[in-house]
């Protein structure tokens, strides 16, 4: 804000100390000038920290540059990286892991989140308080909390294993949530759903509350059953909100890194290696900067493309 106050000060100063006609002109510092003055710093910052790096990434993706060997000769490899990424089974594996993760978290979180929102919308006593309690996990750091879940998942001593063992009668040391190939993906989905179901719930709740009462009153007059009301009024009218929640969760989980890195680091083997983990390994462990730049561009194009298609669908639902 310093910039605006300096400008403001200057203008003010000029207005006071100059003869009337000039003051008039300064006062009229054109709206267009102000608009650009206000917007330019943000655009400049984003150009420097977002766009310039993006262009650099594109340029690097055509080379065999390695960040750990800054002085080695760099040669142009054209589209080789793109070709090898798109035909690399490991990359397809990580895309598949990511897709599974995104799909399951969305299904679970949407179902649970909508159900919770529907129940909270009964407006029982204390629903405001309990809503706030439910929302707490989503505000926490996925890294810090994900790290702690590793403790809850310990086979012998972990609370999660103990509770599951207690409820199901199995030995709490007989299963490893993080170390088992079949359970490791579940362990991530559980933590993610624990954190983000409240997010979907909050958006769904806004959707349910946006449905005007008179529609339900009209349905009552027409003697529509509660079931019918749900399918013909509640669900369709809340749909744009549900889709918005799915969009946001989809994008976020496509980028998922923090929690997976701390819980399983992609393991065991590569069973939970989501795209961001593969990218980190290529870029910051194997130092294949050129190759990983190409992968980064592919990921960006994917998420951007999918989001665009989805937003179009969303708008169509909204306009119905």
């Amino acid at each position: 804000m310093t910039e605006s106050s300096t400008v403001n000060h200057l203008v003010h100063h000029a207005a006071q100390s100059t003869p009337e006609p000039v003051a008039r002109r300064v006062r009229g510092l054109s709206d267009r000038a102000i608009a650009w003055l206000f917007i330019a710093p943000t655009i400049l910052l984003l150009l420097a920290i977002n766009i310039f790096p993006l262009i650099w990434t594109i340029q690097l993706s055509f080379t065999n540059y390695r960040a750990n060997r800054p002085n080695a000769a760099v040669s142009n490899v054209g589209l080789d990286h793109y070709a090898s990424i798109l035909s690399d089974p490991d990359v397809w594996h990580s895309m598949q892991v990511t897709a599974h993760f995104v799909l399951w978290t969305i299904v679970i979180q949407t179902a649970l989140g909508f159900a919770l929102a529907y129940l909270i919308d009964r407006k029982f006593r204390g629903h405001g308080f309990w809503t706030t309690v439910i929302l707490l996990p989503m505000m926490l750091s996925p890294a810090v909390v994900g790290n702690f879940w590793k403790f809850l998942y310990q086979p012998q001593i972990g609370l999660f294993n103990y509770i599951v063992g207690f409820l199901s009668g199995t030995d709490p040391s007989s299963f490893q949530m993080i170390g088992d190939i079949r359970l490791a993906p579940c362990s991530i989905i559980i933590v993610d759903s624990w954190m983000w179901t409240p997010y979907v719930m909050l958006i769904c709740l806004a959707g349910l509350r946006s449905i005007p009462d008179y529609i339900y009153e009209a349905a009552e007059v027409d003697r529509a059953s509660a079931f019918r009301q749900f399918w013909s009024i509640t669900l369709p009218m809340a749909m744009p909100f549900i889709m918005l929640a799915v969009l946001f969760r989809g994008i976020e989980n496509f980028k998922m890194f923090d929690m997976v890195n701390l819980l399983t680091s992609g393991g065991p083997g590569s069973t939970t290696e989501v795209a961001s983990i593969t990218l980190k390994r290529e870029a910051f462990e194997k130092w294949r900067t050129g190759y990983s730049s190409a992968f980064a561009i592919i990921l960006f194009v994917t998420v951007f493309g999918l989001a665009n298609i989805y937003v179009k669908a969303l708008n169509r639902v909204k306009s119905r």
Partner: protein
Amino acid sequence: MPGLSTAHSVVEPSALSKRIAQGIVILYALLTMIPLAWILLTGFKTPPDSISYPPKLVFQPSLEGYCNLFTTRSRQTPEYIAGLPPAEGMCDEIARSRNMVVAGPSKFVPRFVNSLVIAFTSTLLAVGLGTLAAYGFSRFRVPLADDLLFFILSTRMMPPIAVAIPIYLMYRELGLSDTKLGMILLYTAVNVSLAVWLLKGFIDEIPREYEEAAMIDGYTRLQAFRKVVLPQAATGIAATAIFCLIFAWNEYAFAVLLTSGEAQTTPPFIPFIIGEGGQDWPAVAAATTLFVIPIFVFTILLRKHLLRGITFGAVRK
């Protein structure tokens, strides 16, 4: 429902359905609180208590976790410890009971301070820049405004690791690697997109007539912005600031890749709080507790604006 003559609206849920809903929601809330309660409890356990089987719900509370979080210790022989002058303070006493002596402060405090400095500075910058840009987009006909706004939003769609690759190279060239300034600039850039979108929504809701009236009274556009719009947008600015603060506070991916020492924040530090034989869980729990308490406070303050914040202003209540 003032228009209805019946005592109860037809759309008011029945008492029974309210009860059932209440029961399920409270059950869910309590279930999701278990991990958080466990973090709090584990922080007050001794290391042996924290890894006992079955997990202990009732235990003798101890501050050993907090002591271990703030200190580094070294193992010594009992004879050596017996020859030392009396222990200074509780932490020293606890350490000696485990055949160790306190060697010095841990890195937790500097990391926590880094988190504070980076989060608050980047929030201040992002909200400052965001307020100006949001006002610009809200009040003036900016050519290609929709495209610019979409561009601002799209910067958020990049996976952080993908952004980190060129930033890592760029910061290495500029000497910004592992510096607070580097992290502040990066977090400002990430947060400014959220700030512009949220604040544009808030400023859109302030009637233009307020400023126009002020300008007729002789204010310049900038004076009107400062003396009319800013006070009106204060709540929105505060809510936006808290959202930016929470993001910068919680951020992990950039921090773990771009900082290693001097500028490291708390999230990449906590997983490396280790004792003898793996992570020192009471100390980790203590650090986690201290780290999430500010977020609890902020969440409660933000209650009314949460929805708007998490949807980039797309859903307003």
